[in-house]
């Protein structure tokens, strides 16, 4: 496919195949026919975008694949990547009535991928025709900052309704963490980009390589557009702030993943050998699992509390363990040990109880690389440039979780930058809800 956005072909992530490949026709039929077609179905309520799951599944069962995809996209325009990246175990599939019956829940994510992948395949006719102008009121212009799932969902919803949406993205490729952060065995970057091409074909405009606050100012956006949506996500990897951290062999997790997903093998410099991952969240588990799959000799996760307190999902940790990842719990990094040439040789750690260091427990864990996955910084600076937009104690933009409204009536926000870091599907819901709120407000203003 000729894409507007080019990635090198021999990226590191290509070595990791899909763990949940596309279902075949027979599998999709059989699985969709198992769905009970529940009423007031719990799976719908458990989906942050409230996709009408029984309806889309029944359409697969009858062979109406495009209709099935339409049902999905009406609620979630990024239904394809959500199908592949959602932690369905704790969302829709976790709520399926079959669980209570001690039977395997319906594979909702796999079926959702089946419908959306077929319906967005190259050569398929367009599924939606955006309105040329809103049904009521004038065509408005909206600027969106960051081309992650939140902004893409917001922009698509506005465009379909006949408004004009322009996204500004600082990186050369759009998609945010959906393109640069998702574990490759769930979604490869080129598949994320294929979906974005499909969204852009609806009429959404994206300007890459444009950083708001540097290339374009906040004021310019506020002056030039009817509304601004901030979907900037989170910032750089947080550092441990201990001795020896700066230097070769120590990586920030999100940056490490971005290199693995977007760079050529020769440029990625991932230092696979004996790898230590610091952290206990899903990003830490992802990095550990990816390192193991990519052939690291040994991968251990260093986490400062007990295994039960990890914020990462149990099903993800189970997966990592199967890949050979070990967990060194109740352990806190103390410093990085380097040889005379500055080469990293070990991570010095102390043991902890309830997260607090215990005296005289220092010891070295020999390693070739350490990946630090203890969170991402908040983009406080950018938000400050929009008058009236406030931040909470965590550094997240204060916005109404239902509508995305901020302290500035012209500024809306959603996704990781307001929730501190959840899932793609939450960002999609936020973006869509903000767009729906704007559309409703503009159309009711017009009828006044």
């Amino acid at each position, binding site marked *: 496919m000729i894409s507007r956005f080019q990635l090198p072909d021999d990226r590191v992530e290509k070595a990791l195949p899909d763990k949940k490949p596309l279902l075949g026709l027979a599998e999709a*039929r*059989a699985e969709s*026919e*198992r769905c*009970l*077609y*529940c*009423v*007031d*179905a*719990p799976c719908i309520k458990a989906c942050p975008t409230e996709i009408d799951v029984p309806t889309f599944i029944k359409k697969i*069962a009858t062979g109406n694949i495009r209709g099935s995809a339409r049902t999905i996209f009406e609620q979630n325009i990024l239904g394809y990547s959500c199908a592949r990246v959602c932690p369905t175990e704790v969302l829709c599939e976790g709520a399926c*009535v*079959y669980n*209570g*019956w001690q039977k395997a829940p319906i594979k909702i994510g796999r079926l959702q991928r089946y419908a959306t992948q077929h319906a967005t395949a190259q050569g398929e006719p367009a599924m939606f025709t955006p309105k040329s102008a809103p049904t009521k009121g004038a065509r408005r212009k909206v600027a969106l900052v960051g081309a992650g799932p939140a902004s893409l969902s917001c922009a698509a919803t506005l465009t379909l309704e006949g408004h004009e949406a322009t996204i500004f993205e600082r990186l050369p490729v759009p998609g945010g963490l959906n393109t640069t952060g998702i574990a490759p065995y769930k979604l490869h970057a080129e598949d994320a980009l294929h979906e974005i091409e499909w969204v852009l074909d609806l009429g959404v405009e994206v300007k890459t390589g444009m950083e708001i606050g540097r290339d374009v100012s906040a004021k310019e956006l506020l002056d030039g557009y009817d509304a601004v949506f901030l979907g900037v996500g989170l910032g750089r990897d947080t550092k441990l702030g201990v001795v020896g951290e700066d230097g070769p062999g120590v990586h920030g997790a999100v940056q490490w993943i971005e290199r693995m997903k977007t760079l050529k093998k020769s440029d990625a410099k991932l230092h696979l050998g004996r790898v230590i991952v610091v952290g206990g969240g899903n990003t830490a588990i992802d990095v550990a699992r990816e390192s193991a799959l990519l052939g690291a000799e040994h991968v251990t996760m260093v986490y400062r509390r007990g295994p039960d307190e990890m914020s990462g999902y149990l099903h993800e940790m189970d997966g990592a363990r199967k890949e050979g990842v070990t967990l060194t719990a109740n352990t806190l990094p103390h410093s990085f040990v380097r040889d005379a040439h500055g080469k990293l040789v070990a991570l010095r750690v102390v043991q902890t109880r309830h997260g607090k260091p215990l005296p005289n427990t220092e010891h070295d864990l020999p390693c070739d690389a350490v990946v630090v996955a203890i969170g991402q910084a908040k983009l406080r600076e950018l938000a400050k440039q929009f008058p009236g937009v406030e931040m909470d104690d965590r550094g997240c933009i204060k916005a109404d979780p239902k509508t995305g409204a901020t302290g500035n009536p012209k500024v809306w926000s959603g996704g990781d930058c307001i929730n501190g870091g959840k899932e793609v599907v939450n960002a999609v819901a936020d973006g869509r809800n903000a767009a729906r709120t704007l559309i409703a407000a503009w159309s009711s203003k017009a009828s006044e």
Partner: protein
Amino acid sequence: MADLTTEFCGIKSLNPFWLASAPPTNTGEQVMRAFDAGWAGAVWKTLGDPIVNVTSRFGAVDYAGQKMMGLNNIELITDRPLSVNLAEIRDVKKRYPKHVVIASLMTETKHDWQVLIQKCEDAGVDGLELNFGCPHGMCERGMGSSVGQEPKLLTEITSWAKEFAKTPVFVKLTPNTGDIVEAGQAAVKGGGDAISLINTIKSIIGVDLERMVPVPRVGQGSSNGGYCGPAVKPIALHMVAALARDEIAGTVPISGIGGVSTWRDAAEFIALGASNVQVCTAVMHYGYRIVADMIEGLSEFMDRQGIANIAALRGRAVPSYKEWGDLDLGYKLVAKIDPKTCIGCQLCVTACNDGAHQCIFTGPGERTRPPHAHTKGKATAPTPLPLGKIAGDRVPWIDEPECVGCNLCQLVCPVPGCISMVEVPGGAHETWNDRVAAGRGKIPGGIHD
């Protein structure tokens, strides 16, 4: 262990399971394998002047993942020379003297019938089955169901066969008729010793929508065929029962056919008056091996029920098959949901609300009944609200005074045993016919009120 042997018009059979005349009884080699698997009898694929068949021949209805819920075919009678079939029959009878071989026959003139019957009996068959049922192809040539649909013709040809036959004559009826009892009586009138039914139902199984040709497709055309398999069982059960309780048709034994796939199906046919059963589709789907479970399952069931032999099971449910007007209007059932096993899918809620009597609700407190409800006031949730082990507060509840006991919720509930229909005090026993006899047959609100 229950005695599964039967005697049918004097023909002794090891068990009540026979193969119907169809592809599973095409050849001697097949029939012998079937006997080895446990089948007690086989009605040979219909004999007559050989025909030519088309490709393709079968079509099926799949339902929600279940393959071949119904099967349709446009195949004709045997396409093999009569002499070959007869030689094989002779061989089978020699090797399997305790097993039953019935020749299914179809031909035209009286003389043809005479010759055909004689040749079959010479080959050693235990009986003859007259195929008056095939609803495709052969009927266009004045045979098969075109005979079965014409009572006079049916009686006449049966009497020809009786004139020539030394072995028992079974008349196989077509369900493609207005009144099966009329056909059954005609068979008895012609002297038929037994009735087999049903043959297949005239049908078009579907359309190839890309080519706009019905299926099964033969090049750019197709033809109506005969429908059989699990989907037709209810139709067959009714026809068997209707004959079994008829004063004339019910005087001869019945071989029940149509959708028999399990021992349970067989038990139902026998309870409604069949003396044995014949099977086609289930064997075409899963092979001869299914008979092992049929034999064992039926025997276990009969032991459990204390039914010693097939004769004792036969017709047990016939007396309770009544006219609608003789049913008890005072009897009342209501639905009960077991919160322990309910999974909270709420299919019952929607089924009752849209397709029945608007009396299943969810959640605590009062619920407004629909304006047409018979009971005054609001429906009230039971207190405490039933909380399910699995479904929590998603367990629905029944507004009992409004429940008409129709069964729909129980039928849609995916969890076996979760919804039960329980008997509650109703009115005094009274039937519609009682009411009419007592002069209370007119209900207010009629056409003239």
